[in-house]
């Protein structure tokens, strides 16, 4: 069976590019329409009016407040999507974004709660601690893959649950805010240690950090020797080994960098949105970002687009809950369907069929 964790796209002849692009757009549009049709059918079964629900959803997206919300939602998704893109270049499936985001937020909260009286210095320390925490968490899975050969998709998934329990323990016991009411949480971070806002908008500076990170990932993969080596390793590890590349070190580095990016996503959520550690802080960021990276077939800049698209869907999904009275997780159905449609019908990888599989 193939796993289509493809490395760099093969070089295309320029004259075919526009035809390819058109073809791609057509396939994508078809996949999205298919997903929406199936989603409507599911809503009908539930007894909801799909046209009204989707209409409200679309209308709710195009208000200025929603656009700010989408930017805020997309910020950690972009970073966590890069955490999938980078390891994928070497053929590794990092499904542990969720856990790495959580541990990133936890490490940042640890530093922040101790030093937030120091203002921006603490913010910088939180960014560093969050990235380090995420890298460490991804490093466990990477180490298991490299030493005992256990598949990282399985270990990262399991680590997600462990990370959640670590966070819940801290929130419910040692870090619990004694003055808080209702749901347990840590005390809020001092205002000076939060991410500043961009101009007069409600959007925090994390968006800039996320976009810069995405461009850096793109540049590294596209234009550096390191990026090239990652691609060679992902394309054919055996060939890479024979060519004298340090395959293990490359795999480890890609995974650690990925974990660091996911950890940063956790810091964004903590220092830019929630300001305190609470259950449900990550809101499936890791999983949604995994889907976003897949939507873009692991290409960094399109993955930003994938993250924004899923951010749009999830903000639109709030309207499903408020206007149509459907459960909040309904939006997961739409996201899942979009991804399945793209995985199944927008892929190019089906041209060459292996006879053995027929």
């Amino acid at each position, binding site marked *: 069976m193939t796993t289509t964790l493809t490395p760099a796209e093969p070089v295309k002849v320029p004259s075919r590019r526009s035809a390819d692009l058109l073809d791609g757009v057509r396939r994508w549009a078809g996949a999205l329409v298919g997903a929406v049709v199936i989603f409507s059918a599911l809503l009908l079964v539930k007894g909801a009016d799909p046209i009204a629900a989707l209409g409200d959803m679309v209308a709710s997206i195009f208000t200025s407040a929603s656009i700010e919300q989408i930017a805020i939602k997309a910020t950690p998704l972009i970073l966590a999507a890069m955490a999938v893109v980078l390891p994928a270049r070497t053929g590794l499936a990092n499904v542990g974004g969720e856990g790495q985001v959580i541990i990133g937020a936890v490490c940042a909260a640890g530093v922040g709660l101790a030093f937030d009286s120091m203002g921006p210095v603490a913010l910088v320390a939180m960014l560093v601690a969050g990235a380090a925490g995420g890298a460490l968490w991804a490093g466990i899975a990477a180490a298991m893959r490299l030493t005992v050969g256990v598949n990282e998709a399985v270990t990262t998934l399991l680590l997600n649950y462990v990370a959640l329990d670590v966070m819940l323990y801290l929130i419910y016991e040692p870090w619990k805010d004694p003055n808080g009411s209702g749901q347990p949480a840590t005390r809020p971070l001092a205002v000076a240690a939060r991410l500043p806002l961009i101009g007069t908008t409600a959007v925090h500076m994390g968006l800039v950090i996320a976009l810069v990170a995405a461009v850096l990932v793109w540049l590294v993969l596209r234009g550096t020797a390191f990026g090239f080596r990652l691609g060679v390793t992902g394309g054919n590890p055996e060939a890479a080994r024979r060519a004298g590349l340090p395959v293990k070190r490359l795999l480890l580095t890609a995974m650690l960098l990925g974990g660091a990016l996911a950890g940063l996503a956790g810091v964004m959520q903590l220092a830019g949105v929630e300001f305190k550690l609470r259950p449900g802080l990550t809101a499936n960021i890791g999983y949604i970002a995994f889907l976003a990276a897949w939507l873009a077939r692991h290409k960094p800049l399109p993955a930003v687009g994938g993250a924004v698209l899923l951010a749009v869907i999830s903000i639109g999904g709030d309207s499903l809950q408020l206007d149509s009275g459907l459960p909040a997780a309904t939006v997961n159905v739409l996201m899942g369907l979009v991804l*399945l449609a793209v995985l199944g019908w927008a892929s190019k990888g089906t041209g060459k069929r292996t006879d053995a599989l027929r």
Partner: protein
Amino acid sequence: MLFVDVLAGGVRGGTAIMFGALGETVSERAGVVNLGTEGCMLIGALGGYATAAETGSPWLGLLAGAVVGGLLALVHALLVIWRRADQFATGLTLMFLGLGLTSLYGATYVGKAAPGFAPVNVPLLADIPVIGEVLFRHDPVTYLSFVAAPALWWWLRNTKGGLLLRTAGERADVLHVHGYRPGLIRGRAVVAGGALAGIGGAQLSTAYAHAWFEGMTAGRGFIAVALVIFAAWRPIWVMAGSYLFGAALALAPALQARGYALNQFALDALPFVITLVILAVLGKRTLRAAPEELRRVFESAPSK
């Protein structure tokens, strides 16, 4: 007795994981990883509970759990075999879809009562000290699982169907040479695996928890996937491993009932930590036992 409580709880709580893991075994022996097992279990849990609530029959619920679990797995089969989509990405998406679908359709069943499976004491056997309490005072689905694992072992080993399935996982091209269609064999295996996972989910809601709530499988499907690896794809080891996890799950309430103040979150994380530790210890040894086609998926090596 703590020991007996934990063991009996292990059998009770391990049953759902066992069905999930047996389903994953079927799928993986044919060469397909299904991370969507979590989703199949979840959708099976709702399908089983809802059907039991509507029809009044937990047995129909169990059947419905198998059907919806199998249907979700059919999506996986179509995408990874026919459209050659990535197995990990598709499986995880199915998990996501399962979460969403059960949330959409499950809201009306939260807190609603439904007839479920009650424990049935096996005559005579239930009176044996210790063994009786551990093995023979359970719900009928648990007794079904006592048969399911050995039956699967026997089927894989001794029947033509089992041989074809194993060959699809080891050397698919051989099947092709002999005029079989490996894709079809794999597809059937994936759907059957999903149905088994759905039964596991239905057991969880109608016999174990006697309730439906959102996300109730809580990672059991992923534990099942990991368990299959360290059980080296052997049904009998899967059975033993499932009880180990059931016991890890049963430890917390058993200790708390005796007044031990233990960290709830450490206990919640325990099954996942145990899985990781066992994978780290046994990983290399068991991976050598992996079906050949499956190993290619795990090592994400380019297929031939």
